[in-house]
């Protein structure tokens, strides 16, 4: 199955956008997971709801929300453009932001579950052995939640590959810039006589999704073994 250069470009772009989306949102997801798993604070329920909102909100609405905050004439977007010269709209980085926001809950959920499954006595034991709070977090908590981090990242990556609504609403459908696989499939379907391309790209999507699931399983098992379970 050979791809046309344009289709290959869409594939590479999808992989790049998903990688950046996952890598960029991972630290923030970790921070949110830590807050939600270990802290009590006023408004926690609301915060929890906000974090998980992208799971239940139509992606188009997420795209719309991003457009009215990060668009070039929106407050934050204008500031980014004026201060740093960063323009997210019609740009692949904007697509990465959209994919990162929409798949954020997948990461938080997996990390939070992993955190909650760690015996809280273990970090205390590490601290009694002379490790500072941060030291204990890095050497005990983080390695023990690794399977959760990996699982969350892979799920988020796979979901990013398939993100459509938020991306097309926020950064539009620009070939070579924001046209990821699902957008390319959509365009192919919209164009008469392009059924073969649509089929090829759809098959590619299925292959990627399957590979993601298998990889997630393998990585999860390897991480479990790494931490000795």
């Amino acid at each position, binding site marked *: 199955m050979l791809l046309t250069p344009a289709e290959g470009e869409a594939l590479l772009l999808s992989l790049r956008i998903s990688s950046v989306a996952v890598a960029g949102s991972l630290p923030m997801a970790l921070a949110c997971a830590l807050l939600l798993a270990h802290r009590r604070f006023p408004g926690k329920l609301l915060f929890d709801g906000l974090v998980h909102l992208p799971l239940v909100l139509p992606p188009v609405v997420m795209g719309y929300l991003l457009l009215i905050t990060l668009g070039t004439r929106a407050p934050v977007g204008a500031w980014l453009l004026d201060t740093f010269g960063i323009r997210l709209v019609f740009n692949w980085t904007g697509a990465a932001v959209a994919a990162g926001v929409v798949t954020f809950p997948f990461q938080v959920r997996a990390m939070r579950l992993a955190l909650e499954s760690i*015996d809280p*006595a*273990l970090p*205390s*034991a*590490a*601290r*009694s*052995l*002379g*490790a*500072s*709070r941060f*030291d*204990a977090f890095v*050497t*005990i908590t983080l*390695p*023990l939640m690794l399977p959760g981090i990996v699982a969350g990242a892979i799920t988020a990556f796979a979901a990013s590959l398939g993100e459509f609504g938020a991306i097309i609403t926020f950064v539009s459908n620009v070939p070579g810039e924001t046209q990821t696989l699902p957008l390319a499939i959509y365009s192919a379907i919209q164009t008469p006589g392009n059924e073969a391309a649509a089929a090829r790209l759809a098959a590619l999507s299925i292959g990627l999704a399957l590979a993601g699931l298998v990889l997630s399983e393998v990585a999860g098992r390897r991480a479990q073994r*790494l*931490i*000795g*379970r």
Partner: protein
Amino acid sequence: MLDVAVRQRLGNFVVDVAFQGPAAGVTALFGPSGSGKSTIISAIAGLRRPDAGHVRLGDVTFFDAAAGINQPLHRRRVGWVFQDARLFPHMSVRHNLLYGFRRAPAAECRIGFDQVVALLGIEPLLSRLPYALSGGEKQRVALGRALLSQPRLLLMDEPLASLDAGRKAEILPYIEKLRDEVRLPIVWVSHVLDEVARLADTLVILEHGRAVACGDITTLLARLDLFPPDSPYEAGALLTVRVAGHDNGFALTRLAFDGGELLVPRLAQPVGERLRIRIRARDVMLAGSEPPDLSALNVLSAVVEEVRMADAAHADIRLSIGKAQLVSRITRRSAERLNLAAGGRIFAVVKSVAIDGRRADPLPSTDVDIRPK
């Protein structure tokens, strides 16, 4: 010298305990669950801040509410051994052992890796992961890990509670070796009197968040008011004895103490070794005159020190035999018939077979510091 005074309110429950323990030796915190043991451990280790009081070890102050001192957990260097071992599941035994060792100040490294591995017999386990260890092995590794963090104090929180009798028997000799070879203050938390009697020098008896009694274990175990008949614990005095000789013909061992001798079924310990035995109060009978033709081999001339009517049916008697003390539990009726009163002379009768040789515990034969260098 360990000096602890802790006051903490937890809802309706108030813990208010003060005690002192020796600089090298075992201080046992003894009491049922809900007596405040965990609160005191948390305060010593630095896990939770008490409302008031202080925790000092020698000239180091861990906590002093009045002076506003509260050293964080990781700076106190309290070697904490938990009931459930709490080994790090993602690290091999070797890396578990090295975790605290690598974080200890280099200037204070006096307990070496090889010594600890040899002391606890964990050489064959070094490359294994914790899940592949038995309960007793885990506990030995946990003990080694705590020791290697070069602690100022060992805090053993019911370290035997999750082990069955076999595993307990496996790990106790290591702990005794540790007590005798690594001269550290050890705080031993337990609700099992046998464990405490076997290991402790100082006993702190806790109940409902208060220290009911605190002091030398031999003295406390001979007190009549602490272990009444309705207490969940078996009353009995502690006797420190020396193996004086063996009678191989009858398979008996003579044990000498300050005030007399006891014959017990043959022990494995060599002549000269010092042991600690606990003689249960209900195994000590009393006789007004030296009884003839008796199966019991131990008839000891004693002085009645104290008579306490323990409840409607029982009387507890404290006896002295030379410098040693025994406790006897008899019926109140017998006490009246024998006309017992403080200062009177009496004969204490102890059946040899009541003294279980397997529960006799070796004591250090010398007081020489043989701590590993």
